[in-house]
């Protein structure tokens, strides 16, 4: 659960989540108005991924702009290039493992590789990329393999929550594929793609809601009950 100790971090988390709540739905609305919603699996929709990439990158710059900016800059400037290279390789590895994982879960084995790849790229972008951009390769590797616990860092907590809900969303998206409704949005990988995006947005909405509730509860103690309920829900979700 988020701690209220660090007001600055809390504000950052809220604002970045708010940005996500705005930009992702607007991208989806835009492409659905252009009639391109059902082509998200094609390679031609790569620009969506680029847009998301840029947005996430900007968000991470905002999140990283911490008070001890000086110290970090010194450290970072030395190995900037190799850092970027490393994170690129790491992202590729994650992308590949997502790709394989999705196929193992039942995506077509020999065809539709383009579509599967787009889904894998989206999931990489939404789950691992923000982590890397925020903490760097080593730390995020440690986080992924569970060596390091993220303890009380609010931002990392939010990022991990985001990735978990994204994966859950993509998982749940697969549920509608076998139905025989013959609608255009049941094509592989549209339900999973939209499910992943939906999970990500939902997680951000929840974050904003939680933070605002917590701040409100400070003023109006009556709301504490709601916060407790949300806490217990959160703990239930987190194993």
């Amino acid at each position, binding site marked *: 659960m988020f701690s209220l100790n660090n007001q600055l971090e809390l504000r950052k988390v809220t604002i970045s989540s708010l940005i996500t709540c705005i930009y992702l739905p607007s991208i989806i609305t835009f492409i659905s108005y252009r009639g391109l919603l059902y082509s998200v699996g094609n390679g031609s929709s790569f620009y969506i991924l680029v847009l998301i990439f840029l947005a996430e990158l900007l968000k991470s710059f905002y999140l990283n702009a911490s008070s001890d900016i000086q110290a970090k800059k010194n450290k970072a400037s030395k190995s900037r290039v190799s850092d970027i290279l490393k994170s690129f390789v790491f992202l590729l590895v994650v992308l590949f493992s997502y790709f394989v994982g999705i196929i*193992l879960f*039942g995506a077509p084995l020999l065809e539709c590789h383009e579509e599967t790849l787009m889904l894998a790229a989206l999931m990489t972008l939404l789950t691992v990329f923000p982590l890397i951009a925020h903490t760097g390769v080593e730390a995020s590797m440690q986080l992924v393999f569970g060596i390091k616990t993220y303890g009380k860092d609010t931002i990392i907590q939010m990022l991990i929550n985001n990735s978990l809900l994204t994966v859950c969303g993509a998982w749940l998206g697969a549920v509608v594929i*076998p139905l025989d409704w013959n609608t255009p949005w049941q094509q592989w990988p549209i339900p999973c793609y939209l499910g992943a995006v939906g999970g990500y947005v939902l997680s951000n909405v929840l974050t904003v809601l939680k933070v605002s509730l917590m701040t409100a509860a400070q003023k109006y103690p009556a709301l504490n009950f709601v916060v407790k309920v949300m806490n217990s829900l959160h703990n239930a979700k987190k194993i």
Partner: protein
Amino acid sequence: MKEKWNYILYLIWFAYLILSAVLMFGHGFLLSRKTLSDVTKCVPLTEIGCDGWEKGNSTEVCKEDVKIRRLLANPGSEIACVPAEFRVALVLVDALRYDFTEYDGGIEKPLPYQNRLPVMKEMLDRWPERTRLFRFMADPPTTTLQRIKALVTGSLPTFVDASSNFAAMELQEDNLIDQVTKGGGKLVLLGDDTWSRLMPGRWLRSHAMYSFHTWDLDTVDTEVDSKVYDELKKDDWNLLIAHYLGVDHAGHRYGPNHPEMTRKLDETNTRLKRFINELPPDVLLFVIGDHGMTETGDHGGESKAERTAAMFAYRGNGLGGNSSPSNIGAEVQQTDLAPTLSAALGRPPPAPSLGSLLLPVLPTMSVPYTLLHITNNLKQIRQYLVRYGEESQQISLDRLAQLINATREQLDKASSIETDEELANYVADVRALIENVRNVFREVWVEFDSLSMLRALLLLILAIFFNWLITEGLPMDRVPLIFASSFVPTGFVAMAVCIGVCYSAYFFEILDDLEHAIILSTGLISGAITCTLVIMHWDGVTQRWYEGRSQFYERFARAAIVASAVVLVSNSYIIEEGAGLSFLSLSVLALIAWNVGTIKALAMWACCGVVLALTRSYRGCREEQGDCWTAGEGAPSGQASRAALVLALGSVAAVVAVARRHVGWRGYGVVLSGLFACAHWAVGWGTLGSPSRSRLLARGSWLVIVTMFALLWRRDGQGATLPLTVCGLLFYVANTLVLGAAFAPSAALALLTGFLVLTIVSMEKNSTSTKFSLSTRCSSSVACAWALLASYFFYGTGHHATLGHVRWAPAFHAGDPNYLAIGPPITAALVSIDLFGMPLMFGAAVPLLALWGKNGASNVGPRTQLAAVFSLCLKFALCFAIRVFVCAMSATIHCRHLMIWGVFTPKLLFETGACAAALVGCVFGAALATWHIPTAHRSS
């Protein structure tokens, strides 16, 4: 260790409860009809002598009329062929409801389907003597396949046409098409390929097209249109069948109230006009609908709208019977079509037909000919009544005898009829009689017994609920104490008392249905006893639930098994169940592996995923999976290709060779049976092979397997793990034998998956220590994952939940068992091992989940081991029970659904089979484990 065998007894008790309840459900739900292989034969008039009997050597010559009169005077004589033959064009417009054909100029704003077939009205007004229009009443289930079967046999459709061989979809009974081909007639088919699948090889020319794309309104129709007019011009056929699907598909997609329906009906109207113009005047034209549709465009049930189809008949040279306009729209039964068409084509009615002749749609005939047709119809029905009474006890003998006597009386009357008036009365009498016969049969064939279905569901839910409380509620440390007490013996005594009471009540004729009463009373008493147990230990249950909630992955696994069951309510998920099960089982395993959290576990999980992905190539597809089916992947290949043979040999050799080193002396048996299996395929392969030697080798392999199963019970004091592993391997070899070389590698993949999952499970550790802990190793997540995999590999080994996918080759791979005295049980056993070998193998290996690995239960005291094995087995069995319960539930909910006979009922049957196999395997494995777990020393 008093409790040792009580565990096994309890598992048997549970299995009995579930299976008996399912049996009761089946009795109420599955409508069954005995299929007879009889064929109606007729003797040509030329071979009948003047005395009305079949001609011997006498060379008398007499007039035909005299001959027929003599024939009619002999009610016991053979059925005689009527020499008059006509050509018939049968146009089947799928889902042509009766009100589509009505025309009422007075309607101001016609609905999209109203007034769209003006040609019928026009013809009726212009030539009333040439045209007939009837309500053509269908019997439920009103699905196309069942309707076509019923139309050509003239019988009533049921789901289980229990015949000696229901392997192929091919129609086994005598039918119109066979009668025509037997008489030397030629047939042409255009349109729906259901006809050619039901009756392959009977057609002079067949232009059949795939019919399952219900969203494609035009392809089949345009294709038929492009051929049908040429065919109509030719005169080399006797019966032409054109089956149009557009109206039905428009109904499915848009419903009747849609402009598309207007378009399709307008097209039909143009077609009919052209048919009427182009047909030669002596050809009979029938335009019929096989069923109607509801207001949403669906069909399959028994509502009036679905049952009322239309029948339009036209002949340029005029039709017989009464042509008064009041007859328009009279109700006739669809069963009447088969005898009527056969009469028009000069053939006797098909043997199973229960229809009567429709004289108004036949050309005008002289009185003797008409009488001859009617007596033929009566004779055929009498014969059917006699034969059905011989083969089945569904209808009481008194009733049958009464009906047979009634037909005999009518036959006796036939010879005395001279005038048209008498004839009309006689025809009405015969129709009433046949109507009566049909109603008697309909009563036994078409009614669900909802009372026993509901009772069975109640029993299932009782058994599942209380056993769930026992596995998930009772504290683990109390389980041995409960089973050491008199709980299980009490249960068995109570059931024995129940059976005794029921039997004596039956003996004194207070009860009619013994089986029903026994199942109901034992089920209820078992529910009461388990309920008492739970109440007595309620403090423990509440304490366990208070102490802590289970882990997230465990709850997820339970949710997954429930979800895998609940989705069976939807036909799409049943059709795609293979993919769904692999998705769910991989998800459950992923969470288990994630919980272990080591790289090794994740790698194991990935291997599992790869293996499951490899089984996809064996999964094939069923008819409803349109694209895949038309690509030809659905048909199971008969002979294995060279590559498949190499794969099969390689997989068995690899499994046997690797396994042998780890299982001690028992390994030799496994190796021997595996070698025999390999030799069996290699010798029998291709054209060079020797089938007889190959069969001998297969028998050798079975002999080794059976011997090894006997040897498994030899105690060697080394714990239960080794014998259980060998048991799994033997089941594997047995599976490969029945699956045949083409599918054998999939069994190896299943074995590999099982091994990987066992390894993952044995890596699980308790939060506090690495030692064995009951709560971790016997958690429901493990049992659920195992049950999901067991269900998945039904699909993974190339099966599907349709009757058409049952393979019969396994019954014959070791020689034809029908020559043996115990042939039928052997056939049944081999085919069910082929179908449900995987649930059986996984069921037998359930105890391994607790015992496997260094930190398995095999190192702790025997009491704990037994409790662990028991609780896992019960959880595993519960998973299957839940799935069967939901299947039965969905069959009840959907009992009037469009796909009830195509999708839901087969699923229920196969799920029941899988459940039975899993329960048997589970009891077997648990018994083996109990036998081998050493008896406790006094100190423990």
